[in-house]
């Protein structure tokens, strides 16, 4: 790994990070427009076409707002919390594979030659993707907690405690529901998982090959229960409705970020949306074939592209490009579901939330795990 590659990778990571940040205002817009759509009203439509420039206006507002810090607060932590809030989402997104890798031909720069390189459309190819993501996102409890405490406000503290408790509780269900997926694909590697979902539905059952060519070979067909559990947990993890107890307006004003305003508030938003993105991306990867197109294999796509374009580097790049958009499309769909759900379902009570987490999701995920084990055994039994 030479310096240039490091440089390229750094640039790539920065780009991915920036992309994630840029998605946030977009999502805010979607959220507001979407909620208006669902509630049969207009939403922001004054600034720019379709109100798209509202995002910019908001950004300006955020930046220019007064820096308000409660007098009794712990200043260090008060500032630290929003910064930390960015971290989990940011780090987790690095491990998401958005598309197939493509090559970069060798080139000369400043008198020395570099390359050729293979570029992953992914922050870093981390060997144990899932573990890494879980590990990093488990840190998400801190900012909330710190923010709540540092604000020196009862509502904030309550919100922070609720949030962290919720995060920890649902992390269990989350982790357990994914175990099924891991067992199914026999790997922690996200790329391998995506690769395994290529093509049409085929599996073994008591040693018999069974093909169902009318369906794509997606995880959801193998893990329906796991999918539901995982999806629910993702909602809870990202503190969104119907699990937004930490910031339940009616009870806690705005929970842990009651005292936050302006840019710091924005950072919490970024963190939250980052979670949504990572969660949606994981759903796509685990259960919906990642960047793969249904009924179209990678080889098929390559040959299709090769019909119109040639070039050792160009074709993979284009394939990668197509896959990237397929992935983004799928991602967007799930992000929309997030928004949809938010405006459709009422909020749980806190005890209902906890009992749902511990008494429903966790047992079911364990049941799913056992079921998966049995099926895997059945599949290989001859």
């Amino acid at each position, binding site marked *: 790994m030479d310096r240039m590659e490091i440089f390229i990778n750094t640039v790539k990571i920065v780009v991915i990070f920036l992309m994630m940040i840029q998605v946030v205002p977009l999502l805010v817009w979607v959220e507001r427009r979407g909620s208006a759509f669902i509630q049969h009203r207009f939403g922001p439509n004054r600034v720019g076409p379709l109100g798209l420039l509202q995002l910019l206006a908001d950004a300006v507002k955020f930046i220019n707002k007064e820096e308000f810090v409660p007098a009794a607060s*712990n200043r260090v*932590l008060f500032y630290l919390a929003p910064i930390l809030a960015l971290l989990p989402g940011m780090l987790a997104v690095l491990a998401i594979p958005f598309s197939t890798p493509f090559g970069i031909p060798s080139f000369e720069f400043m008198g020395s030659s570099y390359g050729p390189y293979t570029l992953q459309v992914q922050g870093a190819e*981390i*060997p*144990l993707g899932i*573990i*890494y993501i*879980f*590990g*990093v996102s*488990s*840190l998400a*409890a*801190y900012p909330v*907690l*710190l923010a*709540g*405490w540092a604000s020196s406000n009862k509502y904030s*503290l309550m919100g*922070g*405690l609720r949030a*962290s*408790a919720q*995060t*920890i509780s649902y*992390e269990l269900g989350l*982790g357990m529901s994914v175990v099924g997926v891991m067992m199914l694909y*026999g*790997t*922690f*590697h996200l790329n391998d998982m995506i690769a395994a979902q290529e093509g049409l539905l085929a599996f073994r059952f008591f040693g018999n090959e069974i093909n169902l060519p009318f369906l794509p070979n997606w995880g959801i067909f193998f893990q329906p229960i796991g999918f539901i559990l995982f999806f629910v947990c993702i909602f809870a993890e990202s503190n969104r409705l119907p699990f937004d107890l930490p910031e339940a307006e009616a009870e806690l004003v705005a929970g842990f970020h009651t005292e936050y305003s302006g840019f710091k508030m924005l950072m919490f938003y970024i963190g939250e949306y980052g979670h949504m993105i990572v969660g949606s991306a994981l759903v796509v990867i685990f259960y919906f074939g990642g960047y793969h197109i249904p009924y179209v294999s990678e080889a098929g796509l390559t040959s299709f592209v090769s019909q119109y374009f040639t070039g050792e580097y160009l074709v993979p790049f284009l394939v990668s490009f197509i896959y990237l958009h397929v992935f983004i499309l799928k991602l967007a769909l799930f992000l929309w579901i997030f928004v949809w759900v938010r405006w459709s379902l009422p909020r749980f009570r806190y005890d209902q939330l906890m009992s749902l987490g511990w008494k429903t999701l966790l047992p079911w995920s364990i049941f799913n795990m056992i079921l998966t084990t049995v099926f895997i055994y059945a599949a290989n039994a001859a």
Partner: protein
Amino acid sequence: MTEAISFYLIQFIILASALAVVLVPNPIYSAISLAVSMTGIAALFFSLEAYFIAGVQLVVYAGAVMVLFVMVVMLFDLKKEKRAFSRGTLSRVLKTTLSVLIFSMIAGALSMSFSELGSGDSIAKEDITRSIKELSALLYTKYVFAFEALAILLVMVIVGAIALAKAKGGTHAK
């Protein structure tokens, strides 16, 4: 070289935050420093190519245990302590001296026995997935008894912790 740099960086973070844990009089900073330290240790494991362990370290320690600590500290609303250290000049001197002495003894002993332990060259990079499979195989065969014992321990701990936390203050209850 990169390895060395990253090692020293991580090492610096770990030790600095560990010292902060011990020395900072405010428990909340201690807790946060510890979380940082844990994350640093996870990074160290990562650099040692123990990815799974690193992930678990993050999930268990940084993600769960330390959150609990922070929560408890916050619940009790512990402020900066006036006297963070226990009393007794003699015992303080003794404790400090002994800690330092023991560290220097271990370090000295390690340095002197450097050649015997071999260097990092012998690291064989392995297929990580396979190594995790081996790890789990080991866990469920050779160490299965310990594993089951651990399960029992955890159940007992759950019960015990709940009982303790729910207790009304025992015989000292006012």
